[in-house]
């Protein structure tokens, strides 16, 4: 997410870096690049101009130009201003009634229905019973779509077949939710164009008649300059309480987030980071600003980790590790937990300086690799899983056939597991500091292989290079580097 904006800003800051003193003119050049990258990120033109004015005024101040590391100072200024622009965090749904009505609205195809499902899932996780209401009577099969999502989540869905009045549907739904003691009613309204007066009036009508407690605008993360127009129209018609931005898991630059926030002034509530129903994150401006600038977001990482493994499981794993009971089966269970599509890239995005890794894990290949490993474990007998030592050549071939992999991969898995086991068991029960140390050792030993990429062993040829040959190789490397930089610039 936000890679492109981040890349642009990184380039901009690179031109500032390494200069002992910044003059006003080269600072202005650097800031021009910041402006361009914000525009290329689809941030609305007016917002960019506003933003750049403030950043420029600060960046050209005495303190920055004379600072020891001016580029760091500029990063800090941009970071601070971004946080200011993104506004305060407020992921609460303000559920202070017996039945709370949440209305979702947005343009066609912005992802309202999917987001309704994600919101319902989030509520379930927090032990709140939601009810989904199919108030989209326009799009063919929208009602059916909501029912399918409801079935997937085990959430009740209210709909009336053949209904033509969304207000009546919403009212009846609220009454039913009261009877069934559902605490939150999520209204999935029809998508519309902001300029379609008639449909906009209908939406305002629902707003007046059903009196939702919260009204959220769902915005497509890929939206361009038009985000300002539509957000403004919805805000004027409906008094929005928050914004949810979707489809931020691709390479969309998400600059519309800044525009929408600027126009509506309401908090960004959540961001959607995947098409699976668990991919909805509470929005935190610090984290987002950090992500945009490539500073990482550790809080989001910790939250995600906590969601994956609950406390009970964690204690169980800990015990197993301490007693040396950690088997291939546990290894597989953990792999399966993290081998969900999209998850790994998401997690890597939280970590500072992991952009290089992201390229490696780009695509869902990593998750696929992990599933392969899990498949190998599945092809083993119980005895083999608990005591991998007994796996001989015959067993190895059988497992490989069963899992549809090369026998070599089976050996590699076992090797990896054994190596990891030693280190991980060493970590168990220790404090954070020694854990990090152990983790580092694991990484350095090359035993940790997050992408589960089959490693090719590079063999030395035993031949030593003459200094002339070395120089030639160095030249080639530099040439390649220059070529790559050129291409980057061209992009």
């Amino acid at each position, binding site marked *: 997410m936000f890679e492109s904006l981040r890349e642009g800003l990184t380039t901009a800051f690179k031109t500032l870096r390494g200069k002992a003193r910044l003059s006003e003119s080269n600072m202005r050049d650097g800031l021009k690049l910041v402006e361009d990258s914000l525009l290329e990120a689809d941030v609305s*033109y007016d917002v960019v101009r506003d933003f750049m004015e403030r950043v420029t005024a600060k960046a050209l101040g005495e303190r920055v130009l004379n600072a020891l590391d001016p580029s760091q100072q500029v990063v800090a200024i941009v970071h601070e201003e971004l946080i200011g622009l993104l506004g305060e965090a407020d992921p609460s749904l303000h559920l202070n009634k017996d039945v709370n009505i949440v209305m979702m609205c947005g343009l066609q195809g912005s992802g309202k229905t999917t987001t309704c499902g994600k919101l319902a899932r989030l509520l379930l996780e927090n032990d709140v019973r939601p009810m989904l209401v199919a108030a989209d009577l326009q799009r063919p099969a929208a009602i*059916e779509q909501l*029912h399918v999502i409801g079935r997937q989540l085990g959430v009740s869905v209210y709909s009336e077949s053949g209904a033509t009045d969304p207000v009546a549907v919403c009212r009846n739904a609220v009454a039913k939710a009261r009877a069934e003691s559902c605490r939150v009613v999520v209204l999935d309204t029809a998508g519309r164009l902001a300029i379609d007066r008639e449909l906009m009036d209908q939406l305002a009508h629902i707003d007046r008649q059903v009196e939702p407690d919260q009204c959220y605008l769902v915005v*497509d993360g*890929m939206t361009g*300059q038009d985000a300002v127009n539509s957000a403004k129209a919805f805000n004027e018609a409906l008094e929005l309480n928050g914004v949810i931005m979707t489809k931020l898991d691709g390479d969309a*630059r998400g600059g519309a987030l800044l525009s929408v926030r600027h126009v509506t002034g309401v908090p960004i509530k959540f961001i959607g980071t995947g*098409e699976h129903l668990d991919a909805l994150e509470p929005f935190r401006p610090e984290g987002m600003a950090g992500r945009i600038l490539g500073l990482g977001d550790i809080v989001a990482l910790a939250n995600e980790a906590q969601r994956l493994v609950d406390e009970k499981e964690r204690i169980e794993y800990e015990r197993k590790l301490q007693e040396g009971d950690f088997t291939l089966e546990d290894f597989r269970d953990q792999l399966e937990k993290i081998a969900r599509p999209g998850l790994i890239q998401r997690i890597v995005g939280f970590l500072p300086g992991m952009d290089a890794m992201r390229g490696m894990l780009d*695509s869902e290949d990593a998750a696929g690799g992990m599933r392969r490993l899990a498949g190998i474990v599945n092809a083993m007998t119980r005895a083999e899983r608990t005591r991998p030592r007994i796996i001989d050549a015959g067993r190895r071939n059988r497992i490989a056939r069963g899992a549809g992999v090369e026998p070599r991969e089976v050996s590699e898995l076992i090797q990896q597991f054994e190596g990891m086991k030693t280190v991980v068991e060493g970590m168990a029960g220790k404090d954070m500091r020694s854990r990090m140390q152990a983790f580092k050792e694991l990484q350095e030993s090359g035993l940790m292989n997050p992408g589960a990429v089959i490693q090719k062993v590079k063999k030395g040829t035993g031949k030593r290079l003459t200094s002339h040959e070395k120089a030639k190789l160095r030249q080639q490397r530099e040439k390649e580097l220059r070529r790559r930089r050129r291409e980057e610039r061209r992009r």
Partner: protein
Amino acid sequence: MSWFRKKASEPPDPPSGGSAEGEPAESPPKRGFFGLFRQGLKRTSDLLRTDIRDLFTRRQGQLVDEWLDDLYAILIKTDMGAGPAKEIREHVRTEFRGRVVELEQLIDEVKAKFRSLLDQESTSIRLAETGPTVILVVGVNGSGKTTSIAKLAQYFRRQGKKVVLGAGDTFRAAAVEQLTIWAEREGAEIVTGPPQGDPASVAHRAVAAAVERGADICVIDTAGRLQTQANLMDQLRKIHRVIAKQIADAPHETLLVLDATAGQNGISQAAGFSDAANCTGIVLAKLDGTAKGGVIIPIRQRFRLPVKFVGVGEKSSDLAVFDPSAFVDGLFSGPSE
């Protein structure tokens, strides 16, 4: 700067419905696709044109550089991207620096520039010489694929062609139902598969059904996907392969449905989908809103990908053949309110 004051004193005369351009465009919008096209672009053009004219009435004798920046802002707001917008700004700067300009002249200049950028060979659908013409439809989530397919179905049905649809979006809940409803309304046959089933198998069966029943057109839907999802892009490659195995030069068209509200990510979409599915054209959907769809300009520049159709409304009849000249005229001199 004196020319500017002179210019500002006399109100710029409103351009009369595009006729100044020598285009045969009457003020009462023509019926049919061309008329539809204009109608859809009306709001877009109103917005853009007001902006350009504001530029002249608002600015009174100020620096040329300053209003070039304003022109730049207006161009940026079309979503054409900073690069092409700069190109146009510089073009206008060199052409008009220090000269007395008239509104018409400037607009004509920018229009000509737009036109040369959008200049494309042909927008018509490539039909198969014998047997059914297979059209694969791809795009990101929520771009408007299914609705566009319904519109395509109607477009071909009105030409008296027999249409088979393949409900290849087996992922999104109720996508199959949505297309089935459209198929019934448009009088097209539909081939479906089980939810979460293999979309390539649906594509295979749809093409087989089209051949067997002697259909003229076979349109295949796919699930929305982001161009960064490598495994899903591989799935597209597979669908493409499966279709090509049945009919040698199929799919005859692979259309990328692009949301007109999309910003610069549209470029990445065009790149990603062209790479995986070998796109042959674009359907620019949702052009009836306030969004201007300017991102097709850099896409055209980089990938030579032509826009074939535009979606200009919610009804299945709201599809128009893309006309670059009308697109540009519509941007600057559509019928005013």
